[in-house]
């Protein structure tokens, strides 16, 4: 087993009166893509938001590179090297694509080489550079959201369902981009319901249900075992193909 980059141990999260995460144990190894699967409402988004400090864990610890980040405020977690692509993409629609990217480069001016690489990865970023981000299509917004997350080198990127509601061609483009991103030394924790995409890019996989991790292992193992898929995720997978 590779050394862990991120480790959640017994993490509980409450949102108001609701007890959402009920002792999540999750290990994200350094390098590659870890996929987090689970049916709707399982707690995947809540897990990512808790890692990011947007919800406070009420119990348990989150270690990032050995450092305890459980109680850190969100900006500090970001500065530690974790980027977040939220489920709703979090685009600043009132700003242009260029301005979105400028803000995403929180630690300094835009690096032209890196920007060029991103524009090749996601051509709409180039095409609509000066356009208001609010006028982008859903798929283009998703690309912008991922582009923002990688405009500076990051150790870990949390991506929440980047293919939700996208056409197959764009899903393909997105998974190509993730595969290319994998070749850099960035680790990705990907929440994904589209199993063909998840199995194409994923190295390891964890499955959540009802606020717990119910399975963790290699992606190849799960991808090759239809009955295990059936047992872990029931019909939810087919529904999202």
């Amino acid at each position, binding site marked *: 087993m590779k050394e862990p980059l991120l480790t959640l141990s017994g993490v509980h999260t409450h949102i108001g009166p609701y007890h959402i995460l009920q002792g999540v144990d999750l290990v994200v190894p350094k390098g590659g893509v870890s996929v987090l699967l689970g049916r709707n409402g399982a707690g995947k988004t809540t897990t990512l938001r808790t890692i990011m400090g947007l919800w406070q864990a009420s119990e348990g610890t989150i270690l990032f590179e050995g450092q305890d980040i459980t109680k850190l405020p969100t900006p500090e977690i970001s500065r530690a090297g974790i980027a977040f692509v939220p489920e709703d993409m979090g685009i600043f629609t009132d700003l242009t694509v260029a301005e979105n990217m400028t803000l995403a480069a929180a*630690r300094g001016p835009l690096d032209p080489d890196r920007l060029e690489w991103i524009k090749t990865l996601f051509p*709409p970023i180039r095409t609509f550079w000066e356009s208001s981000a609010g006028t982008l*299509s859903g798929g283009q917004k998703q690309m912008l959201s991922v582009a923002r997350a990688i405009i500076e080198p990051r150790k870990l990127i949390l991506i929440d369902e980047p293919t939700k509601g996208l056409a197959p061609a*764009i899903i*393909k483009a997105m998974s190509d981009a993730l595969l290319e991103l994998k070749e850099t030394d960035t680790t990705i924790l990907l929440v994904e319901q589209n199993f063909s995409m998840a199995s194409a890019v994923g190295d390891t996989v964890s499955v959540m249900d009802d606020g717990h991790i119910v399975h963790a292992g290699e992606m190849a193992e799960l991808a090759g075992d239809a009955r295990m898929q059936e047992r872990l995720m029931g019909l939810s997978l087919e529904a999202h193909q």
Partner: protein
Amino acid sequence: MSDTTIKPRIEKAPVLERITTALPIALVPVLAVLGFVAIGDPAAWLTLTVAGLAMGLMIFIMASGLTVVFGLMDVINFGHGAFISVGAFVGFSILIWLGGWTASSSVFLNLAAVFLAILVSMVATGLMGYAFERVIVMPVYGQHLKQILVTMGGLIVAQQLIHVFWGPDEIHVARPESLRGSIVIGEAAIEKYRLVAVGIGVALFLAMRHVLKSTKIGLLVRAGVENGEMVEALGYRIRRLFLIVFMVGSALAGLGGVMWGLYQETITAHMGSEIMVLVFIVVIIGGLGSVEGCFIGALLVGLLSNYTAFLAPKVALVSTIALMVIILMWRPQGLYPVVKAK
């Protein structure tokens, strides 16, 4: 990935967008023309229009900070009027202290006195904003009811402190020599001070626009108004940004207080809370969080108040409330609804 698969369908949107963006701006000249028709007398109309613009711009100065504070952190600050009053009192103290300069016939000394009064008052209200945010607002983030109660409490305390330091009576200060009197254009007499107020207001609006559109801190404010969580997730400390905005907003309220005081030549501890009625109307008309909307709303309120004060004095305040109702019926979120992703 090829561009053809992701062709956007935005070709039509910008035109429509441009029209809807331009519409509220057109309300200002439309109102001016309506005023012209109703008043009939060009000289009176010109005087009233300049008076309305001056009043509107002063309200804009006081309201701009409030709207951004609301947009950025969802904080409803009912204590904003305190900065207006305190700003006026501090500024007037400086003007009284520099009485020799204000009474002098030198334009330079006159303006220097006003400039110093404004500067000191903005520093004082900016620092007061710092204390207000740390002590009063910070503990009640995200709790609207408590914000209303606590900031109103802060307002009362500030008003009482004004009584302690400056006494319970209103204070009169005449405007410096060179800001008194009028310029006559044709048959219309236009007070010089109103032109100065218009100049300061427009300059400030342009400066704010520049900061919001072309500086990183401005981008952060606009991004934060739309989605504060995402700004934090990108690594920015939004609370610190908010504190800066709160201080700037407080200092602008102080500036507005001095200008309003010079306009009326009389100040009271309650002047801030009295003007706040108009300030809130302007902020609501403009769309909570929108500086542009606030600017247009302020001009509309200023013009309408002056026109109706001339045409039908009894309905002056009612008319601005009616304006607010009409605009909200047209655009329930105000002229420029700020997109919120929360």
